[in-house]
């Protein structure tokens, strides 16, 4: 097998050293404050996405079609990314768990509608209860979701 090894100029390493700019700390502070300026807008859109996911869950049955599941997977993955970026960690974890359920069920060739509905209920809970007092209860729910996935799909499949 022929392997070519080449070196290309790393232009970014030259540009970044040009006079001017800002310190690393200033860059991080500015990025964080810019993010704060869009927090409400993004979290509003994320909430709509959660409602959309809960609506579309109605089309997922005991024998769901792959397209409906892919749609749910993509929405859950987006909710995970948006929620996590703004500190909504538990909402993000519930959405991530749904991605995990759909992916691992596909790999294992098994499907459990009750496991899917448990995830929908968890997302409803995360959406309605963001109180400090409810945090421990939500943690228990998230732990339960992980057990549900393991019970339905078996061990984590190997990467390929």
């Amino acid at each position, binding site marked *: 097998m022929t392997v070519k090894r080449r070196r*290309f100029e*790393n232009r970014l390493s030259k540009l970044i050293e040009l006079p001017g700019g800002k310190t690393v700390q200033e860059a991080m502070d*500015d*990025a*964080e404050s810019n*993010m704060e300026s869009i927090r409400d807008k993004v979290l509003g859109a994320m909430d709509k996405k959660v409602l959309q996911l809960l609506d579309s869950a109605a089309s997922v049955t005991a024998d769901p079609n792959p397209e409906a599941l892919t749609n749910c997977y993509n929405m859950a993955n987006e909710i995970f*990314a948006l929620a996590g970026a703004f500190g909504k960690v538990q909402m993000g974890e519930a959405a991530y768990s749904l991605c995990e359920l759909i992916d691992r069920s596909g*790999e294992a060739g098994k499907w459990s509608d009750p496991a899917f509905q448990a995830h929908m209920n968890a997302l409803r809970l995360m959406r309605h209860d963001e109180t400090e007092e409810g945090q421990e209860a939500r943690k228990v729910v998230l732990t339960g979701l992980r057990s549900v996935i393991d019970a339905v799909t078996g061990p984590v499949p190997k990467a*390929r």
Partner: protein
Amino acid sequence: MASAPTNPKAKINLERATVLLMEASPQGMDILVQVLNGFGVRTPLRAMSGASAMEMVKSHLLDLIIIDAQLSDMDGYDFVKWLRTSKIEPNCAAPVIFMSGHTQVSSVTKGRDCGASFLVAKPIVPRVLLDRVIWVVRENRVFIECPTYSGPDRRFKFVGPPPGTEGRRSDDLPLEVGVANTPNMSQDAIDSLLQPQKAQL
């Protein structure tokens, strides 16, 4: 791996960098734009689809590409693979930071083999993303082109071939140092190496 901690007081200037952001979600794109603006990038190019990004690769000189695993018309892995084999120089070798939320089991090896420079797990955290940008700046890996892979060398460590095997590369380091085949350094040369040097920041 270039993972030395970044000095918070070090200066960076990204004002003149041309950065292409690829993300299918409008809110995800908003987050990226705000973060990159905070880093000092003036007007990042934006593409929500692979098709529009391909046009930008053909028409702009890119210094950095930040791409999500899921685009509106194709997946990010396929885009990076296209870029690396496109022969559009120098953009085909542009640094690529690949972002991924949940990664499907079937995509793990695709992520390793697509040719991205670094992978970043979502959700986006400014500190983590800036660290990866700085890794890219320090990056000095060779670009590999072969029938099964195009992209930065996936090996970060050069410790020679595994024990008991022949190295495949001419510059693989041998496990045994062996006998010296050049004269010893003079004491003057050694002393000059130990002289205090002016640090370059």
